[in-house]
């Protein structure tokens, strides 16, 4: 197996691995973000009227 093949296979593995990781991460993030959706810290600050 030459160097091009090794690098190519590694890139494919890393790409698919990254894709899988991002998909799973996104799923977890969406599920935990909550039904009410993420509110940015600045909005929460404004809404609560805290100084």
């Amino acid at each position, binding site marked *: 197996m030459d160097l091009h093949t090794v690098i190519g296979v590694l890139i494919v593995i890393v790409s698919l691995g990254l894709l899988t990781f*991002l998909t799973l991460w996104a799923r977890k993030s969406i599920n935990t*973000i909550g039904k009410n959706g*993420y509110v*940015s810290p600045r909005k929460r600050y404004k809404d609560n009227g805290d100084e």
Partner: protein
Amino acid sequence: MSDQKTLTTELARDLSLFHITMMGIGMMIGAGVFLGIGNAIHHSGPGGVILTFALNGVIAVFTAMSYAELSSAIPRAGGAYNFARIGFGRQVSFISGWIEWFASSIAGSAYAITFSLYVWRFIQGTGIMEGFSSYVPGIEKITAVLITLLFVYINFKGASEAGKVGAFFAFGQTLFLIIIGIVGIGAVLNDPSRLQNFTPFMPKGWGKLFVTMGFTYVAFEGFEVIAQAGDETVDPKKNLPKAMIYSVFIVTVTYVLVAFAAVVAVKAGSPGVDGEVWKWIGSFGAKGFGEAVGRIMPFANFLLTLAVVFASTSALNATIFSATRASYALGRDGMLPAFLARISPTSKTPVFALLSTGGICIVAATSLNAINIASTASIMFLFLFFLVNVCAIRIRRIMADELTYGFMTPLFPLFPVTAIICQVIMIFHLHEVSYAALIIGPSWVVLGIIVYHLYSKSHAKTTEEEVVILEEEEETESDQVERNYNVMVAVSNPENTLGLVKNTYKICEAKKAHLDLVHVVSVPSQIPLRDAEDHMLEGKEGIVEMMISLAFHYPIDTSIRYCRNIARGILSAVKKKKADLLIMGWRGKTTESEFSLGSTIDPLIERSPSNVVIFKDCHNQEFKNILVPVSGGAHSRFALEIATILADKEEGRVVALNVDTGKYHFNVEDMLQKNEDNLYLPPDRISIKFVKSQDRLQAVLTEAENYDLVVLGCTKKSMIQQFWHTSFPEMVARKCSKPIAMVKSSPGIGSLLSRWI
């Protein structure tokens, strides 16, 4: 006088995560992989084709995350056109819509060409019409034009492509491609020498990678259509981002598997294969994938052609209506001439937007070859996704305070910036395969800028602040009234509404019920649901009449519900409003052979979580004598309950009819006694009649002649039995000349499971 809310309109949310994910997958698997594999192998070698799809998948998921973030924050926006409007204003939004229209149209021509190429490849392979194509030059282009015209017509008629059938086909074509991938892996395990096909891995150098990534990028366009389904999706803040990312992941893995299988499918030195395998596959260009796969599995050519036909036609249908919606939106907002937003009064579809889209598809299909079409479609989507990534950065910077997100891209702005850089590089490298794409793409954008300054700028309509109107109104705790029993009356034909009034009165009075009146209006796919109210005027008149009739006596909520499919619209209303009883009318006949009672009634009887009462020919008359054929189940008990409610209070009588066929016996008196608390007539006005007969149907029909109304429960037969035989209640409903009320008691879990078996 009751406290009554004003008439509201709402959009039926009936698309689940599965449906919209399959929608995205179905759009993506259309042409790119079938046209692209052979050409990618030719330009970058066996290793290059695998890397092409893997890396394109990564860049696509970066863009999908931008779409996901924006769609979760603004679920009703409906895509790049409105994201750009919110982020940058009118000019950029016009350019986005302009690009989206052209990109989808060109992609449609790519799907038409793919269909044509693979169908003629199959026909020529069978030898049926040997030499035909050489006698009819351009037969492939002619076929592409014809298939485009067919789907323009289908879209004109308003046929829906979404829903369960579309999801089924998308699932099937994905599964087929995965099977090809698995067969490829199996071939290698069986004969590891096939891995030699990957030597040399990158014969034309690494520089070609961006070239092949560029023209195959069209294989990853489709997930953005999911954003357009925001109005119809259940829990869009969560499901839209999930669907976009899941669909890109599934498609990328599928493409990598399929590309691998294509390379290992051909054994070096096998008959007809001269020289290196990758060169042989690449020599076929767009048909290379078909030639390779044809050598790896039995009936491959037929199965592959079938898969391509399904994939390309469903993607063609979807891109035509997606492009039509884009040009319709531009016309509606005054950015382009208003005739593009004109709706046909008969089909309720935007006919001129459709024709202009079809025109672009046909011109592209006839004037460009396959690689130029694929490259042009790819470059347009690269422009579009570039814009969306920029919008994601811009909106996060200026509006994050105002929005609630269901998903936020991690390590922001690393991924959108990376996607932007890669997209620019891919655009630049496209000149190596297609000068036409590099001329047509930028020319269309420049033309758009000119059109904007000469026309759109002065004609565009002013819109309200879009973040405010795009937020969904949620019912607050203080809006909800204490409800003991909720009755929902669903009508889709205003002419039937008044016929239900009197019987609904009686039921609501007996149950002390709150009444929801829902008028369900079906909207063709070509019109965004949120625009439906501007075009579906006849919905309001019927429901207003019924509202006036009932409103003086009962607490009543009224709404018009816009949906793609009437049955699904009603089901989602039942679930949303937690209805205990659904009342509907039935005209008594159906034109569709696969449905017993009609395409609306059947799914409701099958899937409604509430009790159901369906009236046929019950036009507000008094019922003094009511017949209830009973067989002992939950539906029979509910039928008796409804019959005692509907019977005339002063003189009404209910007769429970038990037809003894000798096969099945149950104790009717026992059933009446146990059900006493649910009956609304005194016991002396409820009687039992026994009839001995082998023919239960005829016995009931004969008895029914002496009564004013027949109330019968829906079948208890299993699904399998129902598949082969028309059920008893349905036969009675069709043949009986008297008014009928068919009832169904809401199922428990055990009942649902046992029904399947």
